[in-house]
């Protein structure tokens, strides 16, 4: 391990410790803590979950159960940009599936996969609640509506 990554690990560990400190004594804090831990690490490494379990005095098995129950949590590292294609009803009837295929083809990855260069992770989401603009997708925090497969390459280009 080089010094750089060591430093990085220390910074992250410190950030995690701060989160745990902030939630100390708060009931039902597991999910928000996991959310913040994922913010810090980009995903939820096993050791991080073990540490959270120990600090919260919650069984490790339960922390793992919760982390795998909710689709928001990721146990593997993800790409720098997260594409989330809406699979809602409105998007479905307006061609959401073809949109997903087009992105998948453009990036050469399937659902829940990450490009080799770590640039994109492709995910789906049940509904983004922007049905009026179907079909839609989100890249990171930005929502794109009224999409068509042709529009995809230009959008991906921006990231």
């Amino acid at each position, binding site marked *: 391990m080089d010094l750089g990554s060591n430093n990085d690990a220390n910074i992250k560990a410190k950030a995690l410790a701060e989160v745990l400190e902030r939630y100390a004594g708060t009931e039902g804090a597991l999910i928000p803590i996991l959310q913040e831990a994922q913010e810090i690490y980009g995903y939820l490494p096993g050791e991080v*979950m073990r540490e959270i379990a120990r600090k919260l005095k919650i*069984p*490790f*098995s339960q922390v*793992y*159960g919760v982390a*795998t129950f909710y689709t928001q949590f990721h146990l593997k590292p993800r790409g720098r940009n997260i594409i989330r294609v809406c699979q809602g009803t409105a998007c479905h009837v307006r061609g959401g599936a073809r949109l997903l295929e087009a992105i998948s083809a453009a990036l050469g990855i399937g659902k829940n996969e990450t490009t080799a260069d770590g640039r994109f992770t492709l995910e789906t989401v049940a509904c983004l609640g922007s049905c009026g603009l179907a079909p839609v997708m989100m890249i990171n925090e930005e929502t794109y509506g009224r999409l068509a497969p042709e529009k995809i390459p230009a959008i991906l280009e921006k990231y």
Partner: protein
Amino acid sequence: MADVTLTIDGKRITVPAGTTVLQAARDNGIFIPTLCHDPKLTPWGGCRLCVVEIEGMRGLPASCVTTVAEGMVVQTASPQVVEARKMMLELLLANHPRDCLTCSKSGACSLQDYAYYYGVRGDKFHGEKHDYPLEDDNPFIVRDMNKCILCGKCIRVCAEVQVNNVIDFAHRGFNTRVTPAMDLTLRESEECVFCGNCVQVCPVGALAEKASLWQGREWELTKVRTTCTFCGVGCNLEVSVKDDHVVRVRGYDNPLVNSGWLCVKGRFGADFAESPDRITRPLIRVGERGEGRFREATWDEALDYTARRLQEIKEQYGSRAIAALSSARCTNEENYLMQKFMRAVIGTNNVDHCART
């Protein structure tokens, strides 16, 4: 608590308020199948096999989590109920291996019993099945998660009885599985103490005692109730034997002591008795004292020799030159006899045992 009167299958039944419909039915000899229910664990209501029809209630409520109410009218075997139970069994079997022929649970398997009872073959659906690797990396328990029906009893027993919380449901929906954190094995988890209480509550063949595999079928076993030898708690055991060989040990439900639960030693440690290291014939020393070299002897020879030497020493040095250690592992009867032997036969009170507490 006040009593409640209800009707189940046309039979008027009076039970204490707060009783579940399931309990009320079973207490009155009415059959309702269950997979996830265990009176010693918190109610779960997940398997839905115990559904019944209750007048005025929507759908088919699960009787294990429905409490009785005054005037309630319950049907436990209406066509609708039977259809639902059959379908539930079809669904479970659709995702279950077809290896009853060689499954160690055969003959004691709830799923098998109910499938037989309802005449369900399990051939209605042909779709995806789980394909998990067999977990047998520890000497005590084999886990075949392909047979797991996700009743969650093992999780509850681990959380509520053993209070170790080693396992929980992970993932969700069709992919739900029971696992230690990180999908590790029990051994890898380093948290499991192998009490095996999960094995005992498993209604199907997903969990089994490793040493019992291929050693005997359920109907071949003779069951003996006895008391555990591994500590002072006095847990009650049910020892299952075939051909003078212990196939497995389970907890016997003595509600005043262990309520059927055990620890790793009580459940898995009885194999010491069949160890090849056992001395099976009397031995007489041939080498130097402490060297540990012996020859086999007959009982008569060994007992005669022992009696003669004790007699000689008693005569030569007096009774008090002889001492005995009795045993905190032997029975009361044997301890009684040992002290009687020393006092009445040898003539000394030099008898003690290792009683440290």
